[in-house]
């Protein structure tokens, strides 16, 4: 059977045509309503934030760049290299290679420690599952969101980078702000 496009046409119901007065209101009335908003804000002064010189403060629960922690009293790493964060990570961006603590080289409190701990920040979706999975509160997500770089490979954060105190670059929103 030859194809007849007309068979497939569906008729759409249209509203009544606005007419002359209605047409004019459409052309000017709606525009004026928009402009009202503009003129109201005009008096408030500029709101542009001069990023990167200025920054928006983030909420305390904001999830940004990760940090690995140490025990404050002993200075040992909290991470035992259990890989549970790697298992929890939905994008598979954490790599942990564990090793054994020896009396000469005690790194963490348990039997094992993370010899290699890497997070691929270009893949991370900042879901925070790693923080929830960690049985030792060894990894938390901080507030830093400035993570761009010129090289993809520089976005693989090593254990040293994650252990280091991050530059305090992100202002935190204070209570009530």
């Amino acid at each position, binding site marked *: 059977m030859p194809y007849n496009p007309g068979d497939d046409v569906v008729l759409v119901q249209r509203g009544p045509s606005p007419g002359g007065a209605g047409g004019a209101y459409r052309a000017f009335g709606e525009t004026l309503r928009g402009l009202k908003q503009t003129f109201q804000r005009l008096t408030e002064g500029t709101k542009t934030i001069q990023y990167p010189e200025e920054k928006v403060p983030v909420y305390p629960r904001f999830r940004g760049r990760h940090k690995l922690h140490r025990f404050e009293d002993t200075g040992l790493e909290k991470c035992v290299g259990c*890989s*549970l964060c*790697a*298992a929890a990570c939905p994008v598979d961006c954490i790599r*942990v290679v*564990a090793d*054994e603590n020896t009396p000469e080289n005690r790194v963490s409190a*348990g*039997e094992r420690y993370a010899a290699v701990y890497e997070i691929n920040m270009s893949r991370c979706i900042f879901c925070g599952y790693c923080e929830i999975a960690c049985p*030792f509160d060894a990894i938390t997500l901080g507030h830093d969101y400035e993570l761009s770089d010129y090289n993809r490979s520089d976005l693989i954060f090593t254990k040293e980078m994650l252990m280091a105190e991050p530059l305090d670059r992100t202002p935190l929103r204070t209570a009530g702000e």
Partner: protein
Amino acid sequence: MPRPEINWITFSIDGREVKAPENAMLVDAAKYGDVEIPVFCYEPKLGQPVGACRMCLVEIEGIPKLQTGCSTPVKDGMVVHTQTERVHDAQRAVVEFLLINHPLDCPVCDKGGECPLQDITYGWGPGTSRYIEPKRHFVKPLELSPLIAIDRERCILCYRCVRFSQEISEDYQLILNERGAHSFVATFDGHPYVAPFTGNIVELCPVGALISRSYRFRARPWDIEGAGTVCTLCPSQCNVDLTVRDDRVLRVSARDNDEVDDGWLCDKGRFAFQHIHVDERITEPLMRQDGKLVPVDWDTALTAAAQALGEAGPRAAAIADGETTNEEAFLLQRLFRERLDCGNLSARPGGDLPLPLARGLADPALQATVPDLEFAHAVLLLDCDPIDDAPIFDLRLRKGVRRRDMNLVVASARPTALDANATTVLRHAPGTAEALLVALDAALSDDRGNLGGAASAAGSSAQAVQDLLEDLTSAGGDIVILYSERLFGGPRGPQAAEALLNVANRLNLTGEGAGLLEIPIGANGRGVREAGFAATHGPGFAPVANPGLATHGIAEALAEGQLSTLYLLHTDPLRHMSDGELWERALSSAQTVIAHESLMTETVATHADIVFPGEAYAEKEGTLVHPDGRVQRLRRAIGHPTPFNRHPGSGVRAGWQVISDLAKLLGLDFGVFAGSMASQQLFAAVPFFNGLTLDEIGGRGVRWPAREAARLAFGETSREPVALDVPPAAAVPSEDALRVGTFRPLWSSKEVDVSPILQYARPTQVVELSPVDAERFGVADGDKVEVGVNGTQVQGAAKLRHAVPEGTVFVAEGLSDASSSLFNYGTVQLRRLGGSAEESPINPIIGMPAIGESPFNPPRHELRESPPGTAPRMNE
């Protein structure tokens, strides 16, 4: 005992009617109805259940108390419930009880993620703990052995490890000390648990109490990939599963195949994987320039090798061994026969058998299978010791004796590890297995004259031979003769093969469940020969126009300059061939030695002129043939190593690729562009492999003798017994000369030599002698002694063994140093050199450090933390 018949019955589980084999344990029967009953201690591989953990409780109508599903056989009409409140209460209670003293240190525990205790706690446990009292503590972790660490706090006392040691490997070393909550797994006096099969307990342990030290903290289950392949470190060819992380093999576990390995591995197979990633690996082609091996690119090496082979033509030779796949052997023999017109190919250290005999021994009707070792009425262990030659067969024979009432009959020169399990043990003189077979043949045919003569030639008596035969035949007709390829070594090999075929004939070993089983010397010895890599026959035992020289002939011809180029395919003649001295001369006088080898051995370093880097078995693809004819498949688990900073392709290449590239340079195009194409060519060329495909082989392998193609290829063969002559009598020991025999310890392999964790097991030379002789020569256990004849000497530590017959000594061969392959069953002089040799004394039975004198740091003081008789340390 023949295989039991299966009788199917119907029972009801959770309201469903299910068919299951009668007398299967409820836990197994429930699986037929898709019902899972949690277990800890139940493991069918370990034999009878013990009911130690109570995890498997179920309710059975008509029985007031809950029953353990793992030890209650299912009967027709049984009504079982696993989902009632009573059962759930019991399961929660058992989990809570098991966790009372469990440290719950999953984050640092190696088992985490693959731990049955975790799984069962999630699935069946109460979810919370009510226990607030201090837990029981042990010192942890400790070395149980150089290979295994033990964490006693995690142990749930399931007895699996102890049962393995007591009932499977029968080394009787592991026990549970103390009582109740204070029980702990240990050896009875705290010595390291060293035996050939210890690694299996790591896999058996349902918690993280027993941990492999080579895998400790290496990876989590979600970091790794599994890759199934076949272990090529000995002829047992166990099916293994490699654990791979970041393209490195980290662990080897069993990939249960009842027809091959029964789910066990030996410690060599489990831990010598370390040889894949060591500095001794050869990762690029090398050539000798100014006396030194220097790296070259593939083109240079291949061209040089092609030129050397092309110039040599029929004056070339090749020997192969070990991990050579069927495909590599097949392609290399094609290259030699078709292009070089040269048949000097051999994979048998003892020399090749004439074609009719080689073919006769491979007759499908005569082949026994590995399970036959367990289900036969009787097994004759003929002058070999499976613990050294093919260790998994040792476990199979033990299982047969223990669980199936099999009669084990041992006739060997050297005392075997299975003597204690045998019904009869006959000790003959070293090297006289042929005479023993002639005596057996005479006894079977009532030839009294030959019987007496041959029995005394074997250093035994007619009566002993008849007793042996009585025990062998009394139980029934399913008889298996397990022998080693070494039987055919030396000039009288063909006669020995005749004698063996005669005996097989007279015992009528052609039926199901009976037959011959040969343990080859190389891991794939059988496959290499069937692929045509032999002096006397082509692929599939096809006759060849001009047979070449076998190993001994090749060595002599090389030494005399009649041959010029030698291709060594994964083999080290200095180490593995008898007569090392002749080979030393042969290698030195050869013009070009091409070594295709994965590890830098002494021989490669001193003698090779062109070196092709070889693959480790985890990198290989191809097929192997198991001693019982099962064609198995090697699959690549990891990529080929490449030298640091070099482009891919400059490093190790596949064996089939190297050989076909070489052939191409010599003007012969195999048309092989992939490993599977080489396999196809092989299957087409060998009549009894016809029609095989890699898919058909799959993960479990296919026994070719059971295929239709085998029947077509061999037809109905019948063999009339031939008349045998009595071989010359064994050498007679005298006042100052002792008979000498040799053995090749399980641990003598280049892979063990370079694996860091197995250094404790590396064999050193021992001289085994009987205490009577020792007293005569004034030698004490451990003294340094020297045996020798005509200027060839071997030194080693004396080891006194009561089971060694008087007037005989045994020395190890195939060691990296001090090889003793120079003695061809004559007599030797023995001389004491001095007091205790400084090397570690080796336990001669298993080639392992003697108890309490291990060279590695013995953890005894730590184990003594809880000395027998006192409670283990409790703190808090």
